[in-house]
């Protein structure tokens, strides 16, 4: 089963997404950017879903750090600030979603990045 890491500081969002995604994926969660990088160093992950506004280490910095560490899998960023999302593409994001979005939109984004049948989890080198 493909592994997805979700990082969001909002417990409600995290719980909901985890419940929905764990029907099809192996889901790990993090409450901030630092935790996300920790989870990533613990084992391979196929896709990262990253909120931008998080304490300790925000999504943008986490994105930069995870790309620097050699993580080559897909990254979807999400935020309630549409104006902040554009520049995350340059930082290495593959897709972004503006909150509030439909779960179906997230599913479609995941399916684009994790085609069925593709194998092999990417992890951070560091």
């Amino acid at each position, binding site marked *: 089963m493909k592994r997805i890491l979700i990082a969001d500081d*909002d*417990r409600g969002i995290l719980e909901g997404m985890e419940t*929905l995604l764990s029907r099809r994926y192996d889901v790990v969660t993090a409450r901030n950017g630092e935790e996300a990088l920790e989870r990533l160093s613990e084992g391979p992950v196929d896709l990262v879903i990253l909120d*931008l506004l998080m*304490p300790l280490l925000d999504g943008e910095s986490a994105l930069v750090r995870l790309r620097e560490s050699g993580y080559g899998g897909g990254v979807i960023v999400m935020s309630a600030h549409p104006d902040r999302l554009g520049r995350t593409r340059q930082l290495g994001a593959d897709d972004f979603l503006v909150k509030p979005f439909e779960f179906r939109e997230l599913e479609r984004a995941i399916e684009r990045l994790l085609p069925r049948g593709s194998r092999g989890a990417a992890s951070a080198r560091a």
Partner: protein
Amino acid sequence: MLPQRHSATDSATLLDHAPLLIWRCDPDGHRGYFNETWLRFTGRSREEERGEGWMQGVHPDDARRRAELFVDPLRRLAPFEVEYRLRRHDGLYRWVLERGVPIHDEDEVHGFVGACLDIHDRRRGEESREAALRMMAHELRTPLQAVKMHVEVMRRAAASGEVCTPEMFDRLDVQIDRLGRLISDLLRTGDLHALSLHKVRVNLAALLKRVIALRTDEPSDSPGRSRHHLTYRGPERADVEGESRSLEQAFHGLLDNAFKFSPRGGDIEVELRPDQDHHRVTIRDQGVGIPEEDLPSVGRRFFRGSNAPRRNFPGLGLGLAAASEVFERHGGGLAVASEVDRGTEITVDLPRSPAEPA
């Protein structure tokens, strides 16, 4: 606008007392006259302001725009209107609205007369409202996203013939309550300005304990909250004259900040110490602190520390300003001492109730 029939003293007095910064320039745009209100505002002499001297007071970022805007009206002798920042005697730049009209009669052009009105507070109010609206949108979108996720959980459960468990409804309900709380918080913040106080004798010690108890019972809905340790130290009774509702809101706001800016948790201490003529409440946290250069502006609405980017600490930046206003309206005040990465100490002084039992 042409030479007046009244005595010179009269019109000069009127001009100098007018609540407007008035000037006059010749047909080339060189200003030769400034009324007393202008000179009091800039704190400079007529000689210093004369000609183009006054332009030294225009904010460097606005100087060019202002000058360019004047070129055409000067050539066409047309009225003009412009907003720019002008340096006040205390060194602060204030937004002014300037309007100028040409003075001319049938065969002669005398130049322009103009007046500036200080619109700084109004303009800042507008900017604040815009910033508040943007933040409100963000603050509301987050619980909305959670609502959407939980609704989807239930929809999928129902679609596949599973039961929607009471827990699913509870989770949804938590998010709806959160939205409701957010809306009342926002309204409350907007309210504080307009509220008139209905003071009665209030036991500040009991009030603080109430505020703390609410925090302690609150389910932790943001990560790390449970890592905070909130304590009260002080007497059982300390009376002030005040309005308990607004005082409670103000202390709630201060505790909000203490929690929010201590993302790694730690002790938050609320201490009450009665003094000669006032009661002093000190709130100490072990959070990220406020850089020294930011300290003069912390009381401003929508201020946030330069070490607290919005991306790491979402919020309106209203807590401290609103709280400070409440304490001031109670005849007291608020002071901030802080060290980056060590924590912040907020000191609130409130006058003792004159009728307080010894």
